[in-house]
């Protein structure tokens, strides 16, 4: 059965772009969430939209599920393969088709690396704003699927705000354009539904992105506080003053310790918390607000404030923050990354409760987060070799998710639900909420072949829809009115 499909795919892609050897397949058994592992039945590497559509059509004909994979950096098991399915890898679709400063758009293939878009746009005075910490390796297709965020999304918005169009292979294997270079395409905002759907509504094969004019001025400071409470109060004061920084990031003592061990970022000694605050925009606005932010940090107890003198020093500030996940590996053999969100004003309270939870379970939790928008990244540290620790870490991790829900937040701010958090979805949403979301799934993918088993804890049976063709004009039925 799968051999027949492999033969079909090889006919489309050529033998070297379809893997079926178990040893080779192993390379793709997991994404960035490495403790889930599934070896796919086949791996396919399309080069073009048409090839990708042909792969999907072959899967549909064989009734075999398919899973898209970009760079495999996802942290929720979104690109975890299906054991009986085809993993469609976009890593050979890496062309930047167009960079148009005049339209403020870039058109890219899905495998293009996030940072490469900015590199291509910078000579024109533009950049691509969403900047996940993984931006040197993650793909635009993956960003679209996860609606990825980054430190600067506080001011500039998430991937969904920066995608204006996509060419998509639907789960039927059709090629469809959603949105485009112009805004506000008529009809339902299917693009809005597609972005963030984690690959369950089809595969993006070309993406049109918004480019943002480079800011005239960027100023960055690093402020050290005795406690996360003080740092949290400083963030509240900044927001209350009507300042919208480009980024506000916080790290607690344990996270700082890890970052120092890993990249020697030289943060102020003895800090219970550091804030990185970055402002950007017209020079005249930035300089006035920067002084205000500095004062607010000092008023709220900052014992040391460093201002980046140049790009090199700014990069050093960010190095500690952006390497935080990997750095935690230096102080703990294993860890779970959480991604819950709380209303920002609940920060001090929730951090205290996380501290208590950790203490009660004898587990360390390092906190790194996007303080401006309340997106926590608690890193729950454990040693899998110690009996019972993994279970306790898992308990703490689940309890943190419950805390986020209790405070009116979300189970995931940017990493996605994927495989990992689908079981928590019913805690955040009612059965009717989930049923309603799955109406969209049924519209796109009634057979449930596109990345099945992700996002939703239980699939919805789509069934035949009554009255499907009622009321439409015969011309439209005939497909003529569609192109008028």
């Amino acid at each position, binding site marked *: 059965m799968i051999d027949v499909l492999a033969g079909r795919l090889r006919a489309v892609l050529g033998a070297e772009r379809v893997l079926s050897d178990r040893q080779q397949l192993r390379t793709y058994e997991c994404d960035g969430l490495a403790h889930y592992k599934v070896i796919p039945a086949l791996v396919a590497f399309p080069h073009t939209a048409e090839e990708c559509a042909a792969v999907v059509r072959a899967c549909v004909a064989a009734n075999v599920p398919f899973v898209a994979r970009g760079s495999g950096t996802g942290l929720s098991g979104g690109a975890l393969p299906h054991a009986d399915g085809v993993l469609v890898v976009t890593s050979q679709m890496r062309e930047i088709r167009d960079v148009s400063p005049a339209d403020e758009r870039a058109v890219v293939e899905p495998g293009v690396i996030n940072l490469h878009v900015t590199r291509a746009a910078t000579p024109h005075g533009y950049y691509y704003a969403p900047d996940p910490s993984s931006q040197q390796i993650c793909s635009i297709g993956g960003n679209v699927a996860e609606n990825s965020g980054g430190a600067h999304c506080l001011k500039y918005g998430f991937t969904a705000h920066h995608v204006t169009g996509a060419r998509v292979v639907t789960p039927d294997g059709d090629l469809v354009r959603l949105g485009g270079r112009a805004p*506000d395409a008529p009809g339902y905002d299917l693009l809005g539904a597609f972005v963030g759907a984690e690959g369950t509504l089809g595969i993006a094969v070309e993406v049109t992105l918004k480019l943002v004019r480079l800011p005239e001025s960027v100023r960055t400071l690093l402020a050290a506080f005795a406690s996360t409470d003080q740092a949290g109060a400083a963030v509240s004061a900044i927001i209350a003053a009507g300042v919208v920084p480009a980024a506000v990031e916080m790290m607690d003592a344990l996270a700082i310790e890890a970052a120092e061990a890993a990249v020697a970022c030289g943060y102020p000694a003895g800090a219970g918390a550091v804030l990185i605050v970055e402002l950007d925009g017209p020079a005249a606005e930035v300089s006035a607000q920067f002084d205000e932010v500095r004062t607010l940090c000092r008023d709220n107890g900052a014992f040391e404030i460093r201002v980046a003198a140049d790009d090199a020093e700014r990069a050093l500030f960010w190095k500690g923050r952006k390497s935080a996940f990997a750095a935690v590996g230096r102080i703990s053999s294993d860890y779970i990354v959480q991604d819950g969100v709380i209303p920002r004003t609940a920060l001090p309270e929730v951090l205290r409760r996380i501290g208590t939870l950790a203490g009660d379970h004898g587990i360390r939790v390092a906190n790194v987060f996007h303080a401006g928008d309340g997106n926590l990244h608690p890193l729950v540290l454990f040693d899998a070799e110690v009996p019972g620790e993994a279970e306790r870490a898992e308990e703490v991790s689940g309890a943190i998710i419950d805390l986020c829900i209790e405070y*009116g937040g979300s189970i995931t701010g940017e990493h996605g639900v994927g495989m990992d958090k689908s079981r928590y979805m019913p805690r955040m949403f009612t059965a009717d909420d989930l049923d309603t979301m799955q109406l969209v799934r049924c519209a796109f993918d009634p057979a449930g072949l596109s990345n099945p088993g992700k996002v939703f804890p239980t699939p919805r049976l789509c069934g035949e829809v009554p009255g499907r063709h009622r009321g439409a004009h015969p011309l439209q039925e005939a497909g003529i009115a569609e192109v008028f």
Partner: protein
Amino acid sequence: MGDLADLTRPAGDDDAVAGVPARLVAAPASTEEASAVLAAAAAAGLAVVVRGGGSKLDWGMPPERLDLILDTRRLAGVVEHAAGDLITVVRAGTPTDDLDLPGQQLALDRPVPGATVGGTVAVNTSGPRRVLYGTARDLLIGMTVVRPDGRVAHAGGKVVKNVAGYDLAKLFTGSYGTLGLITECAFRLHPRPAATAVVCAPAPDPAAAGRLAAAVRDAQVVPSAVEVDAPPGGPVEVAALVEGSVDGVAERAAVLHKVLGDQARDGVPEWWGTLPWRTGQVGIKLTAPLSRVPALLTEARATGAAVTVRGSAGAGVLYAGLPADPPGDVATVVERLRAAAVRAEGHVVVLTAPPAVRQLVDLWGPVGGLALMRRVKDQFDPEHRFAPGRFVGGI
């Protein structure tokens, strides 16, 4: 389930949608009441149109059938304004003009007077400041809806950053009431700027206006809006808005003056943020990539008709207004504009027009992904009872 007679009142003379009279009107005051009404309407197989302020009720095609108008105006008020979190939760029937959020703003312009929050979202109207803040879809962080079968569903939440589950709020934004009833919207807010300035300048022709708009974007002043106004025959004007601190805005306005040339002047032009048509006229929305905005302005002039084009040169969203008579001429103008827009990878949608014009023109033009849209409609509203025929492709 409630009894329809208890949940509704008989329709009055004013209770019609684009000339189609309704039989019943319901005005629920909560999501639960709305759910009861819609469950009863579903059981009775009623065709439903949702009405907010009624300001855009004649946009799109008239409903093919209509039994019940669901009036949202009692579903009003701010449920929550968490200033420290820069968010608000608002009931859909709240008039946009009534939103009082001290020190903060829902950065959604109001091109159509008398609109409710729900109506603004359902039709996805936007104004000049979309350049900086985006549109309803970008500002929404959560939504509560009642499905055509009466079931209540939530998506998103109350936090700005959230990727749990599908983003139904985007799907409902701009859906013209064809997927269900929006009862509550959660939005991210922005601080109210301390100062604003608009600088406006004339341009001899559309191409020159395009160059001015491009120069403004190039100048790193971070405009909140870049607008253009092109009345028939008259001079084209370009105007840009900057918002921020008092000193910062003064400096940025000075830069705008430099960029816009000797004839630039301060002040908000009277056409700013208004749609270029009057009741009874034809209203059109045109979109294009930024570099093609001048091409649309030029084409509008080339038709020789009395077309005023106005809108966001900074976002690529323009509006055109013209007299409805004679309808044949309007149809020709629409065709020409649409051909130009399609060449530019944009769209032309006729938002509103008298019946004689509607008979001659396709309001929506080519729609990408229409087959998928039909499938979405079939899932949410399998009996096609919500605003049947109003939307693209007869949805």
